[in-house]
């Protein structure tokens, strides 16, 4: 295992933020607005961030028992060989499955909004190939590439939001919490599940050059993600109002299309697409790397490289086979995805942590 590859905590923050924001900003505003209507930004900004911080603390506490190991490696140490290996297998499955969903989201979005005549497999193949290219180069290259892209994402994002300030209508946020707190919490579940994708840290913690900083890193990442997603949700509600937002499939795309600077800088959806393509490549690569690393560790082999292409093929096939149509995907994300993701993002780590707390009360024997 190439654990001599080390990344700094800034790089880790950037990686997590890109990974989560890039699909989040596309799907979250609409799904949240369906439940929480005009209070969507509260769901995304406060409720989901609180959840994110909770899971961040769990991961940190858990990860620091074994700063040199990933969850696939230390789960057997905590709860015994059989259970631990089962958990490892479940995580590998989770990463591959989530990755297939991401690839599907990617292709669906591009077909819907960009090149409608191009078949879906083309987009999926390209992104998986690019990601395979990254994964076979390792974690450092992934982080470096993301570090290069991250300022561009932020710039594009800020640019679009900034150009829309003229069209913002804060009246759209009123009245606050019309129907009480329940819809707000309901709306926060999906963004919460998204925020929980920092579960990647369970695989990536050993790569950090200062694992002690993991707590700060994760909380920082959660807050930054919260900021970006809240800004997106708030902007689309402020510009379009909650009722239009909830009927749109991709509000951020509509926002970009709505930008108009002096009638010559218009139709900026290409900016969103470019950011999206780059970001999803990073995201797919991150989950892909986690899956491949996990598989290699689970099978106890030293070099994960040979597994890159087979795993990529599996991801590719499932990205096309998982859903029949685009609404099935969104429906899955809005309903079943929530408990499913929470199990892996909160349930299992919490369980592991509980056992670990009891077993290693007096500090872990090194």
């Amino acid at each position, binding site marked *: 295992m190439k654990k001599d590859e080390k990344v700094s905590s800034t790089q880790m923050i950037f990686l997590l933020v890109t990974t989560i924001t890039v699909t989040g900003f596309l799907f979250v505003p609409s799904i949240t607005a369906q439940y929480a209507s005009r209070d969507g930004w509260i769901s995304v900004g406060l409720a989901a961030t609180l959840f994110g911080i909770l899971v961040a603390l769990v991961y940190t506490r858990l990860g620091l028992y074994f700063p040199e190991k990933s969850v696939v490696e230390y789960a057997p140490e905590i709860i015994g060989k059989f259970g631990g290996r089962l958990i490892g297998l479940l995580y590998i499955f989770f990463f591959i499955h989530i990755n297939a969903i991401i690839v599907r989201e990617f292709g669906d979005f591009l077909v819907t909004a960009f090149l409608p005549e191009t078949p879906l497999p083309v987009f999926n193949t390209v992104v998986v190939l690019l990601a395979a290219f990254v994964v076979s180069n390792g974690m450092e290259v992934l982080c470096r590439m993301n570090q290069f892209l991250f300022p561009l994402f932020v710039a594009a994002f800020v640019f679009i939001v900034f150009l829309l300030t003229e069209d913002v209508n804060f009246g759209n946020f009123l009245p606050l919490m019309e129907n009480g707190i329940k819809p707000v919490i309901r709306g926060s579940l999906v963004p919460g599940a998204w925020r929980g994708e920092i579960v990647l840290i369970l695989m990536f913690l050993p790569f950090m050059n200062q694992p002690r900083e993991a707590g700060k890193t994760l909380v920082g990442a959660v807050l930054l993600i919260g900021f970006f997603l809240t800004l997106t949700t708030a902007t689309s509600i402020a510009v379009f109002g909650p009722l239009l937002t909830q009927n749109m499939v991709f509000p951020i795309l509509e926002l970009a299309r709505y930008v108009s600077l002096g009638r010559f800088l218009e139709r900026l959806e290409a900016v969103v697409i470019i950011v999206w393509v780059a970001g999803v490549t990073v995201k797919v690569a991150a989950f892909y790397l986690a899956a491949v690393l996990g598989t290699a560790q689970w099978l106890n082999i030293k070099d994960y490289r040979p597994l890159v*292409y087979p795993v990529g093929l*599996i991801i590719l*096939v499932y990205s096309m086979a998982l859903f029949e149509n685009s609404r099935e995907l969104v429906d899955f994300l809005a309903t079943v995805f929530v408990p499913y993701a929470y199990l892996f993002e909160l349930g299992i780590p919490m369980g592991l942590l509980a056992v670990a707390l009891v077993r290693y009360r007096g500090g872990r024997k090194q």
Partner: protein
Amino acid sequence: MIILVLIIVFIGIIALETPVMLKNRQWRELAAFGVLMLGAMVLTFAQVLGLPLPNPTSGIEMIFSPVADMIKNILS
């Protein structure tokens, strides 16, 4: 046609990966690669030929949709 392309791709991947492992005598890696690759090939052909694939999503839906419904009932 598409099957031909796929076969070429598979042969390409195998030809690319195996020599290195053979040279370094990484038998464990080779076994893992072989099993995964076989699985991937079966899945790919099944998908291309329109055979039913084991779809984990339906299983997940089965397990988790009661929970999802419960959440819906509590929060609405």
